[in-house]
């Protein structure tokens, strides 16, 4: 990539750092004790440099970022350390000095674009005030400059945009506005805290590209915080890895991603399935056990020790962050002693290795053994939602959430369902489970037509058809113990009648999902996110279903926990012969777990293909863009990669485009695309695409 600056050699960074942080400690004085959110963090950012900070949630990334601008409020306090911005001590600044710094020398962009703009003020006001407050421009000049900035940030009609209100924009557009605000005084340092996490993958790609350009064109140094290694790989020259409030590894992005020198980074790198690598046999990801330590009680030794597969005796002592190579530091006794981590770790064993079904049987062989008739057959499924009227006199408008979808799921296979947010994935899942009643179309489950069946007729089938939801926090009743949660479906379907039976089955279920069988008496809030998702899976398994619809079951989890859950799902499939419909927006996860993949765009199927074929030779232009937009956690690949950028945003599902729904963003679109909706046609073995010019792109 011509636009990537080579990582600056460390010597020049040290000479003119924009930011030098040393031994920063930020603590929260809560009622239950002191949380050491940031615990002795030191790093520098060179002028024009791009620095990435990665780590799982709760590791202290955002608190570090907000400490840099002293944005934290009580009960958070920066208790020690120093922050030098262009040589000036931020921690010693008066409020007035601090104000002059914020938004001028140092600017920040936050994670959630939906909440970070003031909903009742015009964009103009919000963009202009930053410039006016710092006296860099008068009101009128600032407005003119605001229009230019919005244009520069990729907003196509900046004049109109500046007079709009935030709710008139999508998330991606709002993030562009936030970037315009951040860049308005041409800061020397831009801190971006998970700026793309709330966005769809194609929009994420656009925003990352924009950040790259800003770094190149304005020489703005960028600190990018993300939990996604791929995002970091594409933008940052240097990376800090944080764990439990400490930096555990530091080094050039390329080096860390290819040869991590701390077991935690090693685990992060290996936990994510990657588009550029074939899934390994058995598809097990490297997942380390356990969860991050309790922030209230930090252990004396290495903080990663309880989860570390490389642990040695010395790890009972707390290691320092030490130089272990050119520009590389690690906080680990093992790598400091010169031992590499490249050998696969000692088996990251699940609680108990269950007898695996004979691995000698290939997937094809297994397929032949089972009933060849499809388990689920969906034809022409339609669901429109009426929107609340905007006024008494207004007509009803409809969201075309699912608009004629065909889908077949064979016994024992995993079908992945991908698409951008709002494309109808969840609605489709709910239709199949008959949580919603479809407006039209048919759903054959095990040969039974359930599309319009009465609830009583579906009830016996419910047992065979279960769902796991995205949010493990919201989907479990917080007032019931885990045992009660699991007992409910057992009793309801008459699968266990006596309490002894129940107890036995519950213990068995908990064991199946690798939870302590004795944890039934606890309440959901006593479990971590990943454990809660295990409980939801156990609840789904309680009734011995053969089909599970999982709607983004891992999206709310950290990568390592994601890997744990994916492994669990794969293991259960082998053991119990389950069939999955797996919904996700993350393509690499979908490819990893699925036999076949369905790509949805605006309520219609764009492409269906065996996972391998879809990623090797996508036929629909949208699929190609999706694949290209996905960042790969390998800095050298990210830099060399030819980038396809899908412009624009998905149109509204209230008023979808005529003909092909993708035509408003498709570079191949011709007249026929506007006139005739492309039918879903088979172009290769099991490879369907709905495009008039398949594979031409």
């Amino acid at each position: 990539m011509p636009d990537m600056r080579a990582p600056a050699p460390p010597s020049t960074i040290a000479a003119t750092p924009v930011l030098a942080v040393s031994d920063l400690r930020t603590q929260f004085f809560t009622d239950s004790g002191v949380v050491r959110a940031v615990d002795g963090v030191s790093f520098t950012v060179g002028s024009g440099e791009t620095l990435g900070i990665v780590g799982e949630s709760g590791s202290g990334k955002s608190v570090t970022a907000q400490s840099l601008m002293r944005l934290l409020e009580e009960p958070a306090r920066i208790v020690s350390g120093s922050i030098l911005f262009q040589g000036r001590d931020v921690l010693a600044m008066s409020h007035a000095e601090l104000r002059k710094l914020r938004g001028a020398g140092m600017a920040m962009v936050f994670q959630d674009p939906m909440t970070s703009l003031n909903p009742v003020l015009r964009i103009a006001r919000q963009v202009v005030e930053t410039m006016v407050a710092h006296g860099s421009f008068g009101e009128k000049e600032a407005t003119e400059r605001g229009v230019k900035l919005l244009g520069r940030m990729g907003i196509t009609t900046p004049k109109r945009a500046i007079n709009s209100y935030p709710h008139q924009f999508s998330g991606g557009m709002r993030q562009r506005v936030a970037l315009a605000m951040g860049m308005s005084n041409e800061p020397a340092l831009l801190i971006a805290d998970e700026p793309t996490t709330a966005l769809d993958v194609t929009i994420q790609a656009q925003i990352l590209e924009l950040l790259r350009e800003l770094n190149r064109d304005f020489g703005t140094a960028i600190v990018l915080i993300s939990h996604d290694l791929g995002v970091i790989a594409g933008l940052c020259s240097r990376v800090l890895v944080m764990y439990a409030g400490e930096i555990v590894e530091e080094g050039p992005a390329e080096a860390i991603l290819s040869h991590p020198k701390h077991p935690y980074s090693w685990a992060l790198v290996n936990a994510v399935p990657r588009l550029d690598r074939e899934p390994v046999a058995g598809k097990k990801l490297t997942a380390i056990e356990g969860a991050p330590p309790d922030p209230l009680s930090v252990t004396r030794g290495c903080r990663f020790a309880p989860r570390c597969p490389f642990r040695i005796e010395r790890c009972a002592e707390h290691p320092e962050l030490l130089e272990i190579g050119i520009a590389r530091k690690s906080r680990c006794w093992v790598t400091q002693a010169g031992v590499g981590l490249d050998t696969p770790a000692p088996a990251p064993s699940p609680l108990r290795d269950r007898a695996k079904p004979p691995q000698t049987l290939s997937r094809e062989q297994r397929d032949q053994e089972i009933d060849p008739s499809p388990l689920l057959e969906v034809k022409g499924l339609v669901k429109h939602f009426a929107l609340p009227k905007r006024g008494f006199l207004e007509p009803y408008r409809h969201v075309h959430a699912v608009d004629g979808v065909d889908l077949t799921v064979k016994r024992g296979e995993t079908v992945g369902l991908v698409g951008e947010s709002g494309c109808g994935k969840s609605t489709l899942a709910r239709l199949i489970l008959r949580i919603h009643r479809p407006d039209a179309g048919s759903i054959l489950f095990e040969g039974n037509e359930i599309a319009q069946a009465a609830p009583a007729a579906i009830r016996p089938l419910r047992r065979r058809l279960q769902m796991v939801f995205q949010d493990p926090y919201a989907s479990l009743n917080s007032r019931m113990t885990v045992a009660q949660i699991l007992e409910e479906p057992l009793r309801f379907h008459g699968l266990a009648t006596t309490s002894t039976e129940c107890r036995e089955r519950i213990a068995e279920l908990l064991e199946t999902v690798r939870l302590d069988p004795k944890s039934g008496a606890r309440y959901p809030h006593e479990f971590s996110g990943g454990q809660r998702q295990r409980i939801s899976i156990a609840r789904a398994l309680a009734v011995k279903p053969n089909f599970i619809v999982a709607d983004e079951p891992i999206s709310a989890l950290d990568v390592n926990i994601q890997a744990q859950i994916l492994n669990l799902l794969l293991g259960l499939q082998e053991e119990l012969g389950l069939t999955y419909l797996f919904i996700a927006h993350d393509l690499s996860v979908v490819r990893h777990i699925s036999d076949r993949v369905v790509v949805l765009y605006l309520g219609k199927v764009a492409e269906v293909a065996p996972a391998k074929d879809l990623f090797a030779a996508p036929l629909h232009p949208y699929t190609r863009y999706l694949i290209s937009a996905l960042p790969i956690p390998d800095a050298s690949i990210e830099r060399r990669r030819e980038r396809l950028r899908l412009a624009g945003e998905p149109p509204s599902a209230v008023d979808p485009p005529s003909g092909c729904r993708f035509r408003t963003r498709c570079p191949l679109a011709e007249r026929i695309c506007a006139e005739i909706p492309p039918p879903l046609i088979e172009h290769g073995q099991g490879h369907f695409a709905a495009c008039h010019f398949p594979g031409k792109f």
Partner: protein
Amino acid sequence: MPRYIASRLAVTAVMALLATLVIFLIANMVPGDPILAQLGDVAASNKAFVAEWRAKWGLDLPLWERYLVFLKGVLHGDLGISIASQRPVLEDIAQYAPATIELATVGFLLSLLIGVPLGMLAAIKRDSWVDHLARAVSLIGVSSPTFWLAFIMLALFYGGLQIAPGPGRLDPIAFSPPTVTGLFLIDSLLAGDVATFRDAATHLVLPSVVLAAATLGLITRTTRASMLDNLHQDYVRVARAKGLRERRIVNGHVLPNALIPIVTLGGLAYANLLTGAVMTETVFSWPGLGRYTFRSAEALDFPAIMGITLVVALTYLVINLVIDLSYALLDPRVAR
């Protein structure tokens, strides 16, 4: 926006029509015969006399016809003749309303002008003495019964300390200013009569404080909660990260958002003050709608009751309309 306004107006019109129907039905279904309540015992036992009275008041017509007559009257501003006072109801209401409007408005402004800043300060300086004061004010305001507060105030400031004037709108010996609006504060100023203005103002102090107490408590509490809600929103952190002054963040960013729920609350509170001042008006001998209502109810004066109820309903509808429209101004998400 114009569509939004049109649709709000249409809703209000339909609701108003419904209100006339409901009011008519309720008033005509109350147990107790208004004629018998009006006539003396002797007259009431005379069948012919009673029938004549019924015919005179249209009580012999079928229900739906009576509704149409009523509705036609309403549309022409004719709310019927009060049985008790033998004057057009509208005239009665017009005579009593200004006293109530003056009292309610002063009380409302009082609670708004004290409650909003107090709530704001309490939220900004959380757990400081201002916050504690605000909490005390809202607790006392919300939990003191009106009649109790009214008596205490009168006993303390009029009876005991003698620093406040007694009941009534003016000194018993003073003359009302020439009527323009019926609001003494305004009419006296229009007449250039400063003495009367001062007299009217001092007479307003106690009743308006009593009337405002509950509203003040509610507004303070809601403002505080709404401010706290917004002070912790992401956009406030963003504004801080821009380097804005704290005062600008509060007034320019937080307040416009925090005001939105206060508009609803304030509007409804004002409607309540306008229509529900019976207790205060009675204790302070305030010649307002509350007392008129009370007297009409006692006498089962059904044209008057219907008229007042209609006025109350319309007050709520109009205030609701104003709330909806100001919503659209304050919150761009409401109407496009």
